[in-house]
């Protein structure tokens, strides 16, 4: 086989010394038995693998640096969209780095192969670090370090807390470092092969395409290239290097040129967006470079510029040995190099190492903008300088001595890091658990068309259709919302009301302030906390903007889907004990008519008609295993069913349903309304007719329904029932009913003395009837609906008396399930219906408290999932037919419609039908999805 110029040939005799012979001499490392050093490098690689890899997905946290998420998102755009950024690419950085990440993503089967997208990115960083281990070792050797010193260089680079911390991050700087080290290793080729010079130049070009700051290292690398010129290279040595660099680097301006974005386009100064001064939309490379080079950081000579602040506040704390020691070594090597040069010495290795260390330090200290991770560009070279400085100590004739010294030094180093405490968090802290669990909750629970303002680390995970097929095209990073006209104006229409959710880390509000993100700031002022996740000092919060929207539609549909699957059997809503209550049937009918689900309505009403309607024309309240167990009726179920029938008849224009409703209304008047002292009262049911004290249940009182009944049954005084009901409500709530005082809450039950017309405590079989419990909570919901439909002053007045509940919510963040008459807690764990009542009351009395209660307890505690056995991709989770971004009215028209394949939402105990019903009614009330179909039938 013929050789090509790329084929390595056996070592030729060294070129004769002549002017221009490189001072960076070819080290004889291949002369050392290869296996010994190979084993050493492998061992160092193993140390690096453990030091870097252990716990790297958990620390630093995923939201710690926006840059990680930004580059992952841009890599995702390259892979999935064939463009350089998911948003307008404005030449913030050259794209080489994230093209590499995209290649990695593509080769490994997508961004989710290793967990979240950032995990995949961090794995790539680990691989790059492992690749840098032999590179840095070889460079150190070629710059004159004996094996023990070179090993120390690599060890420092791999175990320094400063180095490990930043190298775990998905940063362009890390990728750039890899290319620079590769370029250096190639240019320091022992044979001075021209092909290696060319390859070195190409690699440096790629480094420039990865991050332009590589330019600041170029003087040092050019110095190396100059030193590496050989007689046989003629004039081609340096020019081949420079040509290769410029060739690769020129793809960047070429790209801009082809996109017609090289030069500023008129007055549309895209970079001004970073002055928060949006005018135009174009992007331009030249402007971006101007912007990057003029980002202010305090000035070169200012000892309080960003560099010195970071030195004092961050870097020295993370690793003083490396940072301060390395900087001193740089200085020492520079002095050594210059002195040697002045004395006419040929050895410029110290000078070369010193320059490599000095250039990035000068760049950092230049006085411009500096982020803490910029220190990365200096780290390997600081290590290198320390190694070069201690090389004379380790160049003992006896390898054992040098090796022992180096090993002891390495142990002392690791021991120092351990005792200083800087090492431990790297391996024990798990702050990333917070964003990780937040992310998985969000991905599972939020509707797909939610407009989410989020932080960059979550971007790819929210946008990539994962295994569940769930992704969020309208999730955008907060700084894009602040600065990108296409997002700020285009998607969010300059209006905070278009935001559904804000997902943020604890430190973000400051960033919102800094970037003048008025949309998000205003949205947060009008938002409530849904959930908060905390882990090891990191916290992530999900805030929901206080307005009904896509979430409510999705929750109602998913709630209906769960009820249908779990409880409904041929039109009967069967509870786990096998019973069917007329109340549940009536609720189902109401949900169906409000959800415009004719099929479900017919099914439920059909069963109810066949199985529950009794001789009186009322609904027998309890059924079990094919037979009616108790033929008594409950007036709330009858009223709800009658209202449902009337609304359905009106909505679907069905006279039969209207007629059935009218018959039921007649039966209610006949059997469940009594007249005491001239006033008609709605009783608890047909079973109370005979007793001297009439049982009333305030939570059955449905004034909005009686007004409809008045329309269809004008012969009876339904207005009187409304009036008497409000009187009872006010009186019963303020009455002590045997207790020392009243907290102002309605009692579950109350007795009406036929003789006096007074309210008295009611004696029922078992329970304490005067408390505020699972029955009474519904009172507020019914009154609130009456307020919505009629604006009756009594309704708002009554709701305004719920100060007790407001205080509870304000103080506890929740209300207890059961209170005694005087407000003492009887059963602390909250119930869904209790919160439904509180929500209904607070929506009038204290809207912010209501929003907080709703966000936390109805959105945040809903468990939304795809039913087992469903193909995940078909598991839809959005209101059927609802237009994207629809407001409350759109929700109202379609609330609760859900196909059988839909996602299901569960509140509290999934077997508790009553809880599911009242979660649904509370959500629907919040969403304003309970339209008065009698007055204004939906089209």
């Amino acid at each position, binding site marked *: 086989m*013929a050789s*090509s110029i790329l084929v390595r*040939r056996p070592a030729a005799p060294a*070129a004769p010394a002549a002017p221009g012979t490189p001072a960076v001499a070819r080290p004889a490392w291949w002369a050392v038995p290869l296996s010994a050093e190979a084993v050493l490098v492998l061992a160092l690689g193993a140390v690096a693998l453990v030091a870097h890899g252990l716990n790297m997905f958990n620390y630093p946290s995923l939201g710690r640096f926006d840059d990680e998420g930004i580059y992952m998102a841009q890599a995702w755009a390259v892979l999935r969209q064939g463009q350089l950024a998911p948003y307008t690419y404005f030449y913030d950085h050259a794209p080489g780095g994230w093209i590499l990440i995209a290649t990695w993503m593509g080769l490994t089967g997508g961004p989710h192969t290793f967990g979240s997208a950032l995990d995949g990115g961090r794995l790539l960083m680990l691989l790059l670090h492992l690749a840098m281990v032999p590179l840095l070792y070889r460079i150190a050797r070629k710059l004159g370090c004996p094996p023990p010193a070179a090993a120390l260089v690599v060890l420092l680079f791999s175990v320094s807390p400063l180095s490990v911390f930043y190298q775990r991050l998905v940063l362009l700087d890390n990728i750039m470092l890899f290319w620079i080290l590769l370029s250096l290793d190639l240019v320091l080729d022992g*044979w001075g092969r021209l092909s290696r010079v060319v390859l070195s130049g190409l690699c440096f070009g790629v480094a420039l395409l990865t991050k332009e700051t590589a330019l600041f290292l170029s003087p040092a690398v050019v110095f190396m290239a100059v030193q590496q010129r050989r*007689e*046989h290279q003629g004039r081609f040595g340096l020019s081949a290097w420079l040509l290769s660099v410029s*060739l690769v680097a020129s793809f960047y301006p*070429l*790209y801009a040129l082809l996109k017609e974005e090289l030069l500023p386009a008129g007055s549309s100064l895209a970079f001004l967006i970073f002055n928060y001064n949006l005018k135009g939309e174009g992007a331009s490379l030249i402007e971006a470079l101007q912007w990057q080079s003029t980002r202010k950081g305090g000035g070169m000579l200012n000892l309080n510029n960003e560099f010195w602040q970071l030195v004092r506040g961050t870097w020295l704390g993370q690793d003083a040995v490396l940072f301060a020691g390395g900087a001193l070594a740089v200085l020492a090597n520079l002095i050594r190099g210059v002195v040697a040069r002045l004395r006419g010495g040929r050895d410029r290795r110290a000078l070369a190492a010193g320059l490599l260390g000095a250039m990035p330090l000068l760049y950092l200290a230049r006085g411009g903008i500096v982020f803490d991770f910029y220190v990365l560009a200096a780290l390997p070279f600081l290590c290198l300088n320390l190694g070069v400085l201690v090389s004379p100590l380790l160049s003992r004739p006896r390898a054992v001595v040098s090796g022992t010294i180096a090993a002891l030094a390495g142990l002392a180093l690791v021991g120092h890091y351990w005792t200083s405490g800087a090492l431990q968090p790297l391996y024990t802290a798990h702050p990333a658990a917070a964003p990780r669990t937040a992310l998985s909750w969000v991905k599972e629970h939020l509707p797909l068309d939610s407009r989410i303002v989020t932080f960059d680390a979550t971007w790819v995970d929210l946008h990539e259709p994962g295994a569940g097929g769930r992704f969020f095209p309208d999730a955008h990073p907060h700084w894009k919302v602040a600065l990108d006209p296409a997002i700020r104006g285009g998607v969010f229409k300059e209006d905070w009301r278009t935001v559904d959710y804000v997902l943020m880390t604890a430190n973000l509000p400051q960033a919102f302030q800094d970037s003048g993100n008025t949309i998000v700031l205003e949205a947060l002022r009008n938002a409530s906390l849904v959930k908060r996740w905390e882990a090891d000092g990191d916290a992530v919060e999900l805030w929901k903007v206080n307005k009904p929207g896509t979430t409510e539609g999705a929750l109602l549909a998913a709630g209906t889907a769960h009820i249908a699957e779990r409880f409904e059997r041929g039109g009967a809503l069967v509870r786990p004990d096998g019973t069917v209550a007329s109340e549940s049937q009536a609720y189902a009918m109401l949900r169906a008519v409000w959800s415009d689900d004719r099929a479900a309505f017919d099914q439920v009403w059909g069963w109810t008609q066949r199985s529950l309607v009794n001789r009186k024309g009322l609904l027998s309240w309890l059924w079990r295993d094919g037979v009616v167990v108790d033929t008594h009726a409950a007036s709330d179920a009858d009223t709800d069913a009658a209202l449902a029938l009337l609304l359905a008849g009106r909505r679907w224009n069905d006279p039969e349903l209207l007629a059935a409703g009218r018959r039921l209304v007649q039966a209610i008047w006949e059997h469940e309304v009594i007249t005491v002292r001239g006033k008609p009262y709605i009783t608890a049911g047909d079973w109370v007719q005979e007793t001297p004290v009439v049982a009333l249940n305030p939570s059955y009182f449905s004034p909005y329904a009686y007004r409809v009944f008045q329309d269809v049954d004008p012969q009876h005084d339904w207005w009187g029932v409304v009036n008497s009901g409000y009187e009872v409500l006010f009186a019963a709530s303020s009455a002590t009913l045997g207790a020392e005082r009243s907290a102002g809450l309605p009692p579950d039950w109350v007795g009406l003395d036929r003789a006096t017309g007074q309210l008295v405590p009611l004696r029922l079989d078992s329970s304490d009837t005067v408390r505020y419990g699972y029955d009474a909570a519904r009172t507020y919901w019914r009154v609130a609906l009456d307020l919505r439909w009629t604006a009756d002053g009594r309704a708002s007045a009554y709701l305004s008396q719920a100060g007790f509940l407001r205080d509870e919510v304000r103080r506890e963040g929740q209300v207890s399930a059961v209170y005694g008459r005087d407000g003492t807690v009887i059963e602390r764990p909250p119930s869904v219906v209790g919160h439904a009542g509180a929500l209904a009351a607070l929506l009038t009395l204290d809207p912010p408290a209501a929003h907080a209660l709703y966000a936390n307890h109805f959105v945040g505690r809903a468990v939304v999932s795809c039913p087992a056995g469903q193909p995940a991709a078909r598991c839809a989770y959005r209101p059927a037919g609802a237009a994207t971004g629809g407001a409350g009215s759109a929700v109202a028209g379609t609330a609760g419609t859900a196909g059988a394949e839909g996602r299901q939402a569960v509140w509290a105990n999934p077997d508790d039908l009553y809880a599911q019903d009242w979660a649904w009614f509370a959500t629907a009330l919040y969403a304003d999805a309970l339209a008065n179909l009698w007055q204004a039938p939906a089209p």
Partner: protein
Amino acid sequence: MNPVEVLLVGGSVALAAQSAYAASLMLYAWEDAEKHVQSHAPRAFLPPHLRFTVLLPARHEEAVIQETIQRVVDLRYPAELVQVLVVIEAGDAGTIAKVEEKLAELRMRGKTHVRLITFDDPPINKPHGLNVGLRQATGDVVTIFDAEDEPHPDILNVVNTIMAGEGAPVVQCGVQLMNYADRWFSALNVLEYFFWFKSRMHYHSEVGMVPLGGNTVFIQRPLLQRIGGWDQRCLTEDADVGIRLSARGVPTRVVYEDEYVTREETPPTVGQFIKQRTRWNQGFLQVLGKGDWLRLPTWPQRLLALYTLGFPVLQALMMLYVPLSLWMMVFAKLPVLVAIVSSLPLYMLVVQFTISLVGLYEFTSVHRLRPSWFTPLWLLVAYFPYQCLLAFAALRAGWRQLQGVNTWEKTAHVGAHRQGEHAPTPTPATLGGEAGPVLVGREGPAPHAHGASSIVGAPDSLTQGVITRG
């Protein structure tokens, strides 16, 4: 991507890869120290041992033939070991007269090792003349100098040392155009020779597939006779012989010591340049068609032969492609990635230009010339037109080959490279002598000015030396 874009991307990648390969061949000699050392001529000479037959084929070379003969006679090598055969077609009375005049003068001075041979049977062309000469040759080694050549006085000592010392059966020494400042295309033409002989020939030698040059090539006479001499129907009989030798596994030693190159001149006019280049290209295509390269022992050799001999086709394609891709980049709304890939061949053109530019300084430096400040600009301006010339010649060669036109278009020689003499060369030390190796110094004193004035156009009689093959 639509089919046009696929084609564009594929073509661009292929052309760019080809250019990158070509660029790597241009730089082959500068790759490492070993190659640097290997291409050098010996620092000290062995005693004269081999007998040389120098063939001097000439046709219509009245202007230069006498001086050429004188230069061959002046070679520093014992005359009794040198046989010089001037081969001329019998009808070329003018040149024959000049040669006889010169021979008479030489005989007067006692030099009798130069003979004139004429022939009158067709075809009247260089390979025929060489074969005629070969029949009369008596030396161990046969070599060729063209009428306009200016071989180094020690060239026979160099080759004697290599052939005797290393046992090399074939030696190709460097040939170098020198008049880089004469015409607008001269510098680029000069650089082509520079990169071909200084660098690429070494690669061919390493692979074992050497299209030999037309002169300053030294071949053992028995070897030459065994393969039947030169192919009289071939327009590039030199390359053809090289490939047939390579096919037999005969290694070729390539020497390019800047000091020992045989100096030549660029064609005087664009027309002459085109004709010369057309002949070469067509000759390569002929050799390709003959198929001897298929008998090369290894695949790398065959591929390299295919690439080298078929290069005129590639060059023509490139010429057709570059305007197309430029037009597409500017006017067609290509996806950015496609546009970037389409620009790769242009990138490689820039690379080759840069290599040429650096090569110019390498060339002028080793030959102790001093380029003027505008030479690089000139190179820049001339570069693309020159590529067009090359491509045109390639297209023309392809066209002629397809048409079956095989006329020999001879290049005119006016001796432009002789207007400025190079500095006197130091006498190398004999074997075992005191003087150490001589490195070409970069800071040597500037020689007297090289004749940069433009030449006078050659008379028609010189340029029309076209003889139709019988």
